[in-house]
């Protein structure tokens, strides 16, 4: 290992600029003649849109245009799309309703944009927006997914507000196993809706060049090429080669910046109409209504056990709320990213899952850190924990009995797990967490009037998204390979162009570490270029913990080609046979001699072209590669949470957290630890404080930080984070991915700990202090009544 190679806890190269305010975000970009966009949004959750009077607004000072959905339709700008086709049980395709970037005939949620004002200044745009009169005919609204089917129909294409009724697995075999079970554990769960809240709000700046008839969009995207593809091919804004998308520094995404949103489409369209650059930057309040939310499932699940505590079947019925329209990848989240993980870490012979996806009058729901996999883990890990309690077994023991122990393992729900050692991570976590000492800690807590509980979460996820043919067969509209280009400069420094996009992951460091390891050069000699469709040929972006497993594998392929060509050149320069050239620690050596050339010398020779036949070997040193994975990767691990509850107030504190994860090869253990910390924080936030509240009319009541609680440092103890390692066999580096693990593992660990402390399962996320206090009061009342 070189000092900055694979496995080194190198400090992040990008942090210098981020922590000194030198980052360059979309809102930092300003173009000559720039104007500002302000969106008028529906205050009603469900209404017909009769007319919009923009005359008074258009006459205000500084106004360049006031545009509506009618104008958008008039200019034949296409609708936004959902790019993953799901078919219902009966074979019918999902009911994707038209989603115009500006609503033209009806609005479907509070925040649905109906008009945009383009002005010289943002203040002028806001003032003019006050003058727009919109004539709404308010219709009855629904926000609760469980009530969607009987509510007023939102879209003509979707009777009973049902998008699809999908299923996976063997219904008959599962029912038979349930019928034959010694014990069945049943549970009803709500997976609460979350507002993503990346630190940098979304933004878009669009510029039209009439000379070349081309558009440029700067935006906060996790996947600029996908944005360009959708905006070209589906929205029809401009041909792909006439649209450049640049996603510069992006301050957090968590999935919410994958999607193609109305605002960027409108900015592009408006920029061309007014002939001036148009900028929109969301403020925080707007983000609550304009960014796709996460989760929002209602689930009933049953797990069957035989007499030995072996799981024999799992049956799950979920209603997934997709909100007012289908967002870009919304259909895949509660289906192929969810039900395919319901086997957890366990050998479960029979699984059957039904998912009904519904429209409601709420902000659209799409992928959010973990995307489907946290929901699956929550179902499985809550069931296993409750099952252990009902069977009178230690929850760790029940898990051990059911762990998958040999690999590869084909689950009944598509996934073929390739490698893992679930017992190892459980054991290590139990030691680190001192599970043996828990009884003593519980007694100590009781002396201070506190209830102490311990909860496990032995989660699994499918990452490294994704093998193209596999996802294609499941309905994905695109392949999910990745590309890379390695450009070696004549002086030996290297630029790596990647189709991944970093927005907090530290690619500028970890990708450089890979190059450092392979070429034997310092990471300071390596630049990572990403996020610009004019620089990087194509790429699928960053989500689903894919950048290491898929993106770096593409870089490995390109580096292999660079090394092969450099060896040829070195052979000519050193007048040796190509087969005799060895490359190690940044040096090309003629085997068995002291003749050698440093990597930089070969790079220079490649560009000078004096000492090798350029008719046979092209000058220069630049190679590209596309890498398509052969399987998903399967990070897994064990998180153990301990909480204490104040019996008088319900105040609940996470007092200990242990995470032992198997991510395969670690490129940078410090960055991995940071990813785990952030994931746990988001998972604990979901489990304990983050609550998205709609009233029955569809008003978002938790629409600001006054009412929507985000986790802060004081919500957490110091985390004990460690790893075990089984290499991922399907990619050259053995990487599994770590970006989502914490958020996937944490909610179940928290809720298992809280229910352990309380002695009741009757509490839902978020288990706020108030919810815990109420659960305690209910138990006390029931106890008094029983006595």
């Amino acid at each position, binding site marked *: 290992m070189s000092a900055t190679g694979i496995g080194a806890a190198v400090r992040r190269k990008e942090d210098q600029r981020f922590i000194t305010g030198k980052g360059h975000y979309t809102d930092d970009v300003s173009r000559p003649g720039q104007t500002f966009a302000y969106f*008028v*949004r*529906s*205050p*009603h*959750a469900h209404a017909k849109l009769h007319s919009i009077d923009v005359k008074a607004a258009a006459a205000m000072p500084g106004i360049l245009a006031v545009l509506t959905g009618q104008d958008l339709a008039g200019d034949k700008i296409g609708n936004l799309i959902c790019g993953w086709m799901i078919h219902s049980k009966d074979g019918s395709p999902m009911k994707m309703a038209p989603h115009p970037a500006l609503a033209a005939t009806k609005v479907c949620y*509070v925040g649905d944009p109906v008009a945009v004002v383009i002005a010289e200044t943002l203040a002028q745009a*806001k003032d003019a*927006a*006050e*003058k*727009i*009169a919109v004539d709404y005919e308010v219709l009855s609204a629904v926000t609760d997914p469980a009530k969607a089917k009987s509510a007023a129909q939102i879209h003509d294409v979707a009777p009973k507000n049902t998008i699809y009724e999908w299923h996976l697995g063997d219904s008959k075999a599962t029912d038979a196993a349930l019928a034959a079970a010694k014990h069945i554990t049943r549970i009803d769960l709500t997976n609460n809706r979350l507002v993503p809240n990346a630190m940098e709000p979304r933004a878009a700046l669009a510029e039209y060049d009439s000379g070349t008839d081309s558009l440029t969009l700067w935006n906060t995207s996790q996947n600029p090429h996908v944005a360009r593809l959708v905006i070209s091919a589906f929205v029809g804004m401009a041909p792909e080669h006439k649209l450049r998308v640049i996603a510069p520094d992006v301050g957090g995404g968590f999935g919410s910046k994958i999607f193609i949103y109305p605002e960027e489409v409108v900015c592009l369209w408006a920029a061309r109409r007014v002939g001036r650059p148009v900028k929109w930057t969301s403020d925080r*309040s707007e983000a*609550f*209504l304009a960014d796709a939310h996460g989760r929002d499932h209602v689930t009933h699940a049953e797990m069957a056990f035989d007499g030995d505590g072996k799981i024999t079947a799992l049956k799950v019925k979920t209603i997934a709320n997709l909100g007012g329209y289908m967002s870009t990848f919304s259909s895949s989240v509660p289906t192929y990213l969810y039900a395919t993980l319901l086997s957890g870490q366990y050998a479960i012979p029979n699984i059957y899952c039904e998912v009904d996806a519904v429209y409601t009058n709420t902000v659209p729901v799409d992928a959010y850190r973990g995307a489907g996999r946290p929901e699956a883990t929550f179902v499985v890990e809550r069931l296993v924990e409750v099952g252990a309690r009902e069977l009178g077994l230690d929850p760790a023991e029940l898990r051990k009995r059911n762990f998958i122990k040999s690999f590869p393992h084909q689950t009944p729900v598509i996934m073929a797990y390739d490698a893992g050692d679930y017992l190892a991570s459980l054991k290590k976590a139990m030691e680190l967490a001192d599970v043996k000492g828990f009884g003593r800690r519980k007694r100590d807590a009781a002396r201070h009037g506190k209830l102490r509980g311990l909860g496990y979460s032995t989660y699994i996820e499918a990452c490294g998204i994704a093998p193209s043919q596999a996802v294609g067969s499941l309905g994905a509209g695109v392949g999910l390979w990745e590309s890379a280009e390695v450009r070696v400069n004549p002086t030996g420094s290297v630029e790596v162009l990647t189709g991944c996009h970093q927005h907090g992951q530290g690619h500028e460091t970890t990708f450089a570490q890979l190059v450092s390891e392979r070429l034997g050069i310092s990471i300071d000699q390596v630049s990572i270029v990403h996020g610009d469709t004019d620089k990087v040929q194509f790429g699928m972006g960053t989500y689903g913990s894919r950048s290491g497993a898929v993106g770096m594998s593409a870089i490995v392929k390109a580096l292999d080609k660079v090394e092969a060509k450099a060896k040829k050149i070195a052979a000519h320069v050193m007048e040796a046979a190509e087969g005799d050239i060895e490359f190690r620690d940044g040096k090309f050596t003629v085997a068995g001699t002291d003749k050698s050339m440093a990597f930089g010398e070969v790079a220079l020779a490649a560009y000078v072209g004096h000492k090798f036949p350029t008719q046979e070997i092209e000058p220069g040193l630049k190679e590209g590669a596309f890498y398509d994975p052969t399987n998903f990767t399967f990070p897994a691990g064990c998180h153990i949470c301990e909480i204490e509850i104040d019996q008088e107030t319900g105040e609940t504190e996470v007092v200990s957290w242990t995470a032992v994860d198997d991510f395969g090869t670690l490129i940078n253990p410090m960055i991995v630890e940071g990813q785990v910390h952030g994931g746990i924080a988001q998972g604990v936030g979901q489990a304990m404080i983050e609550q998205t509240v709609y*009233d029955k*009319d569809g*008003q*978002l*009541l938790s*629409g*600001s930080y*006054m*009412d929507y609680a985000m986790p802060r440092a004081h919500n957490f103890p110091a985390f004990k984070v460690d790893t075990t390692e089984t290499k991922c066999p399907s990619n050259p580096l053995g990487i599994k991915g770590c970006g989502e693990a914490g958020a996937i593992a944490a909610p179940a660990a928290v809720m298992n700990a809280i229910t352990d402390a309380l002695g009741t399962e009757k509490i839902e996320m978020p288990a706020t202090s108030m919810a815990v206090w109420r659960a305690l009061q209910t138990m006390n009342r029931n106890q008094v009544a029983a006595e």
Partner: protein
Amino acid sequence: MAMTMTGEVQLPASRDTVWAKLNDPATLKACIPGCEDLNMLSDHEFEAVAVNKIGPVKAKFKGRVTLSDLDPPNGYKISGQGDGGVAGFAKGGAVVSLTDKDGGTLLTYNVEAQIGGKLAQLGQRLINGAAKKMADQFFENFAAAVKG
């Protein structure tokens, strides 16, 4: 979101005087906090414009107000819908009843309202306080008007 508010005010005037003032557009315009304009459309219907601030949301509400269930001089129902543009909307009504008390008139009111948009998103914690404050201010003004 739904908002309810009830209250009562002792007014230093007879029931007939209070009733007349409750139906007088000029009095209402002078007493409604932030009221910029109030025009009668018919005997029991008027259009009003009022500027109000609730927490961080300042809005100019334009709306049509209807008086119904008229029972002179005992009370009526006043209801309407105000469109605050990008700030959202408010709609609802109040049942107002008058009784003789201590040589004056006791006015009781029962408000039920719905608010939406930015008002609900940002102002919901503040809405009850703001509404109470506005009501207090209205009746303070109104008490002065009936006295005068």
